[in-house]
Structure formats: structure tokens, C-alpha cells
């Protein structure tokens, strides 16, 4: 064991294992951005209210400004950089967001997407209300949310149809 002020963390980020020795007060968002260079995770408020920093930890959406990087030891983290299945191919949610003008400045977008990925993984055919409740903790200053809701509903259909086709 190292000193109580630094620790070595080993985790999996977007499918790739990584290990770093860090100061224990580093929150997960800063770890992803500064230590790993994954600047797709955005930091808006750093006190849990805006949702921009949302990432998936073991498949569950969490606010990465409210989790210490040391607490992610041994876990699987998925960030916005890990959503697309391969370079040049968008995740159905990303494609739908593009089509429905679900983003303008893009600041809230990584948090919206990671939050909605968890929703679509757990609820097959969400209603518009369910989508609105799911993103109630994500603040967007630009879009007025309509395009984001439309995109989520369309992505849910696309995902359901592709699951049906691959049966």
C-alpha cells in the first residue's frame, strides 16, 4: 500500500486496461480528462447538478465529478469516446442526435448520450416521458431538449429493429 495521499488505480476504460498512480483527491472526470486525455467527458459545474460529466461505470450512469478516481479501481468505465462501435460508424443514438439536431454547442452531449445509453439498455421501448425523466439531470442550454427526446425515441426503434433483424 502507498501513502494515504496517492494510490495506483487499475481499471478498464472503453475496453482498454489502464493503470496510473494518482493523487487520491483526483475526481474521475479530471482523471479521464487530464490523466488519460479523454476530453470528451465535459465538466460543467463540478458539484453534481449539470450532468455534463456523466459516464458509465460498470454499465451504470454516474456523475464523474462526484466519484473519486480511486473508487473506479477494478471497474469498467465507458466514456463518450467508447460509444461508437468502430471508427467512422456512429452509435444509433449518435446518428439519431445528428439527424434530429439534438445538439448545438455540444457541451451537454456526452452526458446526454451516456445517460441515454443506460436508458436504452434497460428499457426497450421508452415513452417520451421516460426519456424526459431520464435526462432530467442533464442540463442543455441550447436545444430546448425536443431534438434530444426525438433522437432517443428514434434510436430506441433502430436498436429494437436491428435486434429483431439479427434474431
Amino acid at each position, binding site marked *: 500500500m502507498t501513502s494515504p495521499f496517492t*494510490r495506483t488505480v487499475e481499471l478498464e476504460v472503453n475496453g482498454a486496461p489502464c493503470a496510473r498512480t494518482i493523487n487520491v483527491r483526483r475526481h474521475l472526470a479530471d482523471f479521464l480528462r487530464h490523466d488519460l486525455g479523454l476530453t470528451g467527458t465535459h465538466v460543467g459545474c463540478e458539484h453534481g447538478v449539470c450532468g455534463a460529466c456523466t459516464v458509465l461505470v460498470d454499465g*451504470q450512469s454516474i456523475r464523474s465529478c462526484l466519484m473519486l478516481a480511486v*473508487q473506479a479501481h477494478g471497474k469498467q468505465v465507458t466514456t463518450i469516446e467508447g460509444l461508437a462501435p468502430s471508427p467512422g460508424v456512429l452509435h444509433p443514438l449518435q446518428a439519431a442526435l445528428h439527424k434530429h439536431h439534438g445538439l448545438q454547442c455540444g457541451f451537454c452531449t456526452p452526458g446526454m448520450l451516456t445517460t441515454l445509453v443506460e436508458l436504452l439498455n434497460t428499457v426497450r421501448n421508452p415513452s417520451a416521458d421516460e426519456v424526459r425523466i431520464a435526462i432530467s439531470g442533464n442540463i442543455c442550454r441550447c436545444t430546448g431538449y425536443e431534438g434530444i427526446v426525438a433522437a432517443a425515441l428514434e434510436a430506441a426503434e433502430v436498436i429494437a429493429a436491428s435486434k429483431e433483424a439479427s434474431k
Partner: protein
Amino acid sequence: MKPPAFGYHDPQTVSAAVHLLASLPNARVLAGGQSLMPMLNMRVVLPDHLIDLNGVAEMSGVSIREGLLVIGAMTRQRDIEFSDSVMAHCPILPEALLQVGHRQTRNRGTVGGSLCHLDPSAELPCLAAVMDAVIETASPRGRRQITFADFASSYMTTSLDPDEIATQAQFPLWPQGHGYAFLEFARRHGDFALASAAVLMTTDAQGRISRIAVALSGVGPAPVRMQEAEQGLLGQVGGADLFAQAAKTCASLEPQDDIHAPAAYRKRLAGVMMRRALEKAYGRAARQ
């Protein structure tokens, strides 16, 4: 907006956690971090040591025994929301939990963390009040049980000793067929409520209220049990007039003005939430 420097400790057992808390200077326990991390980032609290309870497996889990729903302090709010046995035995809990923050905060936030943080508008303390929950704790002096009424001593302050942690909450179950309702008013979904009402009741074959508990939050430093209203409702056949009359007992509440709402508005809102919760719970109660 970065946490201050602190030493980090991640004990795996309750006794190790309590030992650390008793021996380290200016130490604080970390549960889900959904209230403590914002306070650290804003440097409202400046601990020298953080004792992370997330590795203490014995502190999480849900069980039902001898008429009690026992919830480990480190059980995630999410796990209560999706628990079939909680839904079957104590449906007011998931009804209230859906209004605690957002999916992202419930994935990390814990039951014990919310009870210990004791925000005056929080849902879980209101539930603990309406259900007469008992909090079990651990300290170097051993374990003890504290009724929620004694646990919630004042504004955001529990009766825990500085070297004591909450290990579980025990909620006495109501009989099958009881009526329940948790209603709140918040400006946006997931915001802290301006006022909330929790009601549990049973009714007899004639529709008379045979047992009742009413708690409100957002209207004082800690959740309040509306004992005068409970007494007035007991033995009566439910109805719009009766419930409107009961809600008038809110006149005795003394909420504070704050940036979210003036005191008079909170008081009025509390009455409306209480009346509606009584109607809903009465409609759900089996006549038995």
C-alpha cells in the same frame, strides 16, 4: 472546484471503519458521495481523512425478517428502487425514491448517506419518520439502536457520536393491503422538494381508518410527524371533508423563508400535499 487534500482509507469491515474513524483526526466517512463530494468540491467541508465505506460489503443489502425491512446503510438507492421484495412489502419506498435526484445520483447515492445527511427536504428521512424506522449504529463502544425520532436531532444534524457510523435502517412493515402515498412538489423533476407528504394507513371493512401515520418534510429543520392530524383521523370514515380538515393542522407548522419559497407558501403547499396523499392512500387501502 476541486476537493481539498485528504488521506484516503478504504476499510472492508465495519469494525475497521469504526476504528479508523475513532483514531484518525478530522476524519469523515464517504458513502455514495452525492452530497459529500459536492461539499468537498466546493470546500464547504475540509476533512484531513476520508473513510470510504464503499468496500464494506456487510453494510449493503436488503432483507426482511420478523416484520422488519432491514436495509444496510450502504445499499444504493437504485437497489431499493428495483427491489421486488421492497415493492411487495413496502411500496411507499420505491414511490418516494423515484423522486430522489436522478438515475445518475441514485446509482451511487445510498440509503444511509441520505439518512445521515438529513437534508430537511429529503425523501428518505421523511419515510423513516412515517415508518418509525430504527437506525442501528456501530462505534468503538459497540452497536446501538436509535429510533429515528431521536436520530434526527436538528437541522442536518443526527445524534450520531463523532466516532459512530450508521450501519443499517430497520423499517417496521405495515400489513399487506395497507394504503400508502408519497407526494411532493418540486420545481423540476429530481430537485429537492419544497414540501412532501408521506401517508400510511389501514382501513376496516366499513372504510374506517384503523391505523394511520402522516409525516411531512420541507417544512421544518427535520421531518415532522403530524400527530394531531393522526389522532383526528383515527376511527373516522375517510372523505374529502375529513382530509381537508386534517390538512388544516399544517397551520401549526413553522417553516422558514428561503430563496426557494416563502414560509407561507411552503405551509400552504404542505397542506395540499398532505390532503392529496391522504386521499390517495385511502383509495389504495384494502377494506379489511
